[in-house]
């Protein structure tokens, strides 16, 4: 694939690879075990300008596109999905500001996020509202020059670590999803606190916490777009972020496949490397083929988005769906190829398998992805017809 990349894109890949080999691989098992947020690595990611690729040049970004974001996310995921999730989650918090932010909001919030000195987060999910985003209960009541927020967000990636939160609230609960609004809340705002840190199956080093709002007073200038636009902003955000979840899946699968292939060439049974057995060879061949197909779909979706195409929901969802199902299969097979060793924590593949699972769940479960794809097909026909 490398020959298809521009000079700048190759630089992005090289920087990420260096961060992975020098900073991530030596500590990833320890971070996973202790569930420690990889602050030093994220600082290094920031210093390397990798957050700038989310953001246009006029706000101190690099003015690149979703494709570049996918390249960086994939490479970081190859090393550790916790780091990549923390990185991509900041992007998920940034995208709503890019989509719906006013000039003042962009000038105020984006430069700090571009340099990586500040992290962002995206707060939609609640205990009673995940896939069913219309059921959010957190409210924002207009009070003069402010909104007063009340409610609790759940499972928020970068919770407690981020400085800038895009929060989806009900400004008019009677209207259902048409009464939802997106509001920027800064860390440290009185009435904004963090709940417990979750103990997770995978991506254990990433921070997942509750956001608790108790009469939290936020200036009305922090409203993104206008009241009632919240749901549309969230859906447009996912259109751009879902290929990056696909890129996470491609990256973690790549990491697992590399481990499996190397192991199969070294591990001897019956006097010969296990890579000489057709049973293993066919597994490796399927893993590689599915991985490359997923990568092609993710890159294609990203490039279509970057071309300015408007109807990208289906393609973005397909990239996320296919790549994450592939990653789950490939990481499970990698554990299988490593056998007993694969089951042990001394080898990285069991962690990759645990990490991969989240890509089938977050930013919309794969069941929701299939709903979205099918509904869009029924509405607009088969993709290549349209």
């Amino acid at each position: 694939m490398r020959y298809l990349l521009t000079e700048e894109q190759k630089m992005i890949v090289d920087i990420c690879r260096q961060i992975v080999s020098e900073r991530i691989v030596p500590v990833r098992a320890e971070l996973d075990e202790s569930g420690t947020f990889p602050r030093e690595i994220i600082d290094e990611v920031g210093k390397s300008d990798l957050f700038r690729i989310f953001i246009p040049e006029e706000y101190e970004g690099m003015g690149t596109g979703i494709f570049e974001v996918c390249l960086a996310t994939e490479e970081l995921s190859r090393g550790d999905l916790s780091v990549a999730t923390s990185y991509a989650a900041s992007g998920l918090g940034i995208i709503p500001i890019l989509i719906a932010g006013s000039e003042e909001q962009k000038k105020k919030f984006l430069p700090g996020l571009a340099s990586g000195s500040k992290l962002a987060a995206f707060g939609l999910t609640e205990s009673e509202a995940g896939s069913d985003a219309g059921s959010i209960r957190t409210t924002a009541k207009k009070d003069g020059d402010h909104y007063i927020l009340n409610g609790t967000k759940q499972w928020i990636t970068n919770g407690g670590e981020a400085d800038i939160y895009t929060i989806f609230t009900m400004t008019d609960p009677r209207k259902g999803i048409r009464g939802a609004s997106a509001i920027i809340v800064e860390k440290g705002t009185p009435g904004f606190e963090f709940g417990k840190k979750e103990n997770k199956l995978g991506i254990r080093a990433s921070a997942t916490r509750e956001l608790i709002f108790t009469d939290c007073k936020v200036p009305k200038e922090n409203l993104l777009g206008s009241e009632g636009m919240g749901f549309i902003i969230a859906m447009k955000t996912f259109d751009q972020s879902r290929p990056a979840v696909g890129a996470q899946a491609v990256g973690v699968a790549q990491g697992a496949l590399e481990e499996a292939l190397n192991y199969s060439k070294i591990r001897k049974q019956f006097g010969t490397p296990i890579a000489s057995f057709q049973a293993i060879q066919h597994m490796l061949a399927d893993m590689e083929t599915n991985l490359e197909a997923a990568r092609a779909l993710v890159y294609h979706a990203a490039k279509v988005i970057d071309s300015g195409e408007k109807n990208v929901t289906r393609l973005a969802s397909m990239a996320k769906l296919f790549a994450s199902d592939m990653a789950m299969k490939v990481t499970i097979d990698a554990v299988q190829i490593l056998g007993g060793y694969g089951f042990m924590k001394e080898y990285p593949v069991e962690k990759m398998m645990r990490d991969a699972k989240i890509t089938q769940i977050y930013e919309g479960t794969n069941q929701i992805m299939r709903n979205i794809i099918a509904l869009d097909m029924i509405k607009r026909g088969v993709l290549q017809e349209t």
Partner: protein
Amino acid sequence: MYRQVIQIKIAVCMKQVPGTMEIKIDPETNTLIREGIENIINPFDSYAIEEAVRIKERLADEEVEVIAITMGPPQSADILRESISVGADSAILLSDRAFAGADTWATSTTIAKAINKLEDCRLIILGKQTVDGDTGQVGPELAQRLNIPFIGYVSSILEINRSKMKIKRLMEDRYETFEINLPAAISVVKDINIPRVPSLRGKMKAKTIEIPVWDAKKLEADENEVGLAGSYTRVVKIFTPQIKHDTRMIEGTADEQVEELHKILKELNLVSGS
């Protein structure tokens, strides 16, 4: 209100070295076999460049300029570009056929001329030594020529401003803290920092930046004071030491093996006792 912009120039001296610990020497010609060996920044110099960039970030209110310098053949520009990608502002390549074959004496003469040309360098940072030559002499010699203080093996810069700095250095059995006036030259050890990964902006700048090449004429150097002609030492022979392996397998039960090993070690005077 008028604010005086204080400019602090920091020069970082670096060298391109073979990127391997297993250097092979051609026994016929006594020269390094360079085929197939990738050249890298001398590892200690990457701590030097990182520390200079950190000083620049630390003194963000003042104008600090970090200039990377190396002397070597044209391809040495690669390590200068690499230093740009991690935050150096500019770089200068000292390159001339006349510089070839320089020992530390002639090298420090050449670099001193370049530093003088830069005017008002407040600080010169070097790695504690190179991994190919291993002498550690260029830093002190350079300071001598520039008539400025030199402190080697610095492990921490505690305070710094335009006129002085406070530093800690690592000795074999202790740390020492110094306060020295600037300009000065220091060499740094690997404890001082963890060099950063290049940035995307840095890499893009490194790709296109023009690196001026200063030759003997530009430095107004006499041909007899640089390169081989200006060197007081000659490398007569370089050789790979013959490592003698004297292996003997001890056999028998564990107790017999221990007994036998103890006997051998005693004969070699490596252990005492009965």
